[in-house]
């Protein structure tokens, strides 16, 4: 009964699968919100008001939407970084640190070098990518060479880089401190390295005319566009290139990869370097587009929260972008929510944790909503390994 399926039924199959892939994350988000409503109620506030505030702050008007997009951007970069790493079987918990390295290197290039516009910007972003990539490659190399567990080493590199940066920008003699200010922060980058805001009135190609968005000029920066381009690049990388095939093979079965002729050790290092570079670009963009200098306390938590983004997005670039929008919206809306109802913005971290939990434990969601479709086993490197009692011979 050898069957080759027609393209049409393949499409149908894919559609059904896609629907299934989307259903669980949406239900996971809903469930998380219900649980969080309970938590908010417990603290004496009105959950409905809280969520309304969250919504208004995220999508209430043009400014809110722009804010959401800006907040979404770093989640996309970090989520993509984790997608590459997880697909390659590397539990890169160090995206947080690689993000910082990207920021600090881009800042350094931004204020220490004098280069013409555009070139300065490109060099700064590339510097961030290379810095993040190298910082990520270290745990990858250690794993490839010595087998050191990357979960723990990447967590350690996070703490290490945090302390190094604290020293670099320390007002007491830190080499990157801003001498003009008694605060732990760097000098400002030159405007030549700024990542500019999008001027919609000037985008007027024959095939796209965005002049109707002219009023939005100055509310969005090019980093968001770069993030979307990166999402496409990551998709192509993972599913349309030889390297991507090798990364995914190593991620699922290093032994089969070796058998197939893949240089497993090199691929591990490459995976971590690419992942770190993606995080580094994200860090660079945050500094070059928004703050223009680096200080501690900026951009904390993207690395960890994006584990949830990547999982929620099903380790697929398109899914990651959608998941990042959700997280960006929550970040954007949280301030309004806090102002209106007094619910602390930390509630967002709880939502994010719960979303990760319900997405990872999709069986819970399936049970609550009585979904019958059987989940596919072990399709990604972050699926659980299951051994059954009757598995033998």
């Amino acid at each position, binding site marked *: 009964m050898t069957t080759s399926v027609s393209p049409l039924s393949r499409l149908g199959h894919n559609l059904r699968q896609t629907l299934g892939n989307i259903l669980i994350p949406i239900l996971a988000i809903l469930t998380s919100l219900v649980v969080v409503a309970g938590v908010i109620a417990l603290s004496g506030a009105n959950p409905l008001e809280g969520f309304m505030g969250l919504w208004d702050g995220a999508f209430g008007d043009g400014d809110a939407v722009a804010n959401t997009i800006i907040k979404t951007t770093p989640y996309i970069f970090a989520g993509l970084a984790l997608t590459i790493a997880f697909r390659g079987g590397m539990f890169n918990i160090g995206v947080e640190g690689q993000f910082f390295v990207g920021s600090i290197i881009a800042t350094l290039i931004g204020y220490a070098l004098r280069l013409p516009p555009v070139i300065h910007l490109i060099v700064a972003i590339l510097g961030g990518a290379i810095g993040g990539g190298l910082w990520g490659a270290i745990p990858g190399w250690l794993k490839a060479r010595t087998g050191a567990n990357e*979960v*723990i080493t990447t967590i350690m590199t996070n703490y290490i880089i945090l302390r190094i940066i604290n020293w670099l920008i320390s007002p007491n003699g830190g080499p990157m401190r801003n001498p003009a200010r008694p605060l732990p922060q760097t000098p400002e980058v030159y405007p030549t390295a700024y990542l500019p805001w999008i001027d919609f009135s000037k985008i007027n190609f024959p095939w796209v005319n965005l002049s109707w968005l002219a009023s939005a000029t100055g509310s969005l920066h090019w980093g968001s566009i770069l993030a979307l381009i990166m999402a496409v690049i990551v998709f192509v990388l993972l599913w349309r290139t030889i390297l991507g095939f090798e990364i995914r093979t190593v991620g699922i079965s290093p032994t089969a990869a070796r058998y197939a002729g893949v240089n497993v050790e090199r691929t591990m290092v490459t995976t971590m370097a690419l992942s770190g570079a993606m995080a580094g670009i994200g860090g660079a963009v945050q500094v070059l587009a928004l703050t223009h200098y680096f200080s501690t306390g900026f951009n904390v938590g993207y690395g960890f929260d994006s584990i949830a983004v990547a999982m929620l997005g099903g380790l697929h670039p398109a899914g990651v972008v959608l998941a990042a929008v959700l997280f960006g919206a929550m970040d954007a809306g949280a301030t309004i929510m806090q102002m209106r109802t007094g619910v602390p913005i930390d509630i967002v971290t709880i939502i994010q*944790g719960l979303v990760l939990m319900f997405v990872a434990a999709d069986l819970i969601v399936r049970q609550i909503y009585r979904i019958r479709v059987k989940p596919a086993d072990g399709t990604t490197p972050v699926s659980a390994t299951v051994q059954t009692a*009757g598995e033998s011979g």
Partner: protein
Amino acid sequence: MMDEKFFIGLLALAFVKATPITLGALTGIYSERSGIINIGIEGTMLVAAFTSFIVSVVSQNLWVGLLGGMLAGGLVSLLLAVLSIRYKVNQIIAGMVINLLAIGVTNYATRVYIDTSGIAGIGVLPKWRIPLLMDIPILGPILFQHQPLVYFMFGLVVLTHYVMFYTPWGLRTRAVGEHPRAADTVGIPVNPMRYASTVIGGLIAGMAGSFLVVEAVGSFQKMMTTGRGFIALAVMIFGRWNPFGALVAALLFGFAEALGVRLQLGDINNIQALVYLTGLGMLLGGTIQMITDFVKKKETRSKIIAGMVAITGLIAAILGQTLTFPPTVIPFQFLGILPYVLTILVLTGMVRGAAAPAAEGVVYEKQ
């Protein structure tokens, strides 16, 4: 400059600093020996620290606070076990869920319940000075003038060693972590053993978290665990999933941390002290490792490495004692890096996958 008093103080502090790390490593040993990877120790400790603070303030009793913290730790670990076993979540992800939720919940609750009310802690547990033993020269002040949880930690190390290697409970726990199907075929309930072991570990993580509040600081601060739960994992690996091994490794970390603390005080020549004390530490650690290697008939490579560490340490110690370095101030942020760098070095120095329970991270299910 580097007198006896300083040295004794340093070692005593090393034991204090090693306490939460050792306890965290014991948590890891209980859950991983049974086959459940526990990346969530950090979060478990954080929740326990918060709970022990709230409970101790409400009850006005630090011991009740400790109990509350332990129970919280047990509950958080139960969540880890449910996610890992019942819902078959990848155990690394399950651990990260615990960590993320722990940060979210404690930060949120701190804002809602602590920051606004401005409640203050009720101090820390007093030291138990052990009569007679505390008067032994040198050893007395290093070992027998501590707060209670330091002694509890020693007790738990001994107890865990006994339970794991000399009782049916331990034999079964290890079998479940090594070869669950073999355990199943002789009628050992695999998953219940895993639940039990993970929750027992959680209670101990609860003690580790509570330690930070009821013994070390006296109040709760956001993110106060600062990676100790993760370092505990490295310590557990370094100690080859054995309680005493973990204790020795934790002491190394405790020593490094204590050194950082003392050097930050800036009362001694930084570099000289660093060289001297690191040398002493290496000498001590290398020698102990070499002796255990010989006793346990380990492979030659391990003995040689230990010997080289010891000799390097000896040379460093002599140099540190005899030479006078120009007084330099090492940025204190760098000293804080020491335990983290040490963790990485430890992990890279380990033989691949040595001694890890074979069925770690693998869900077992009957049909």
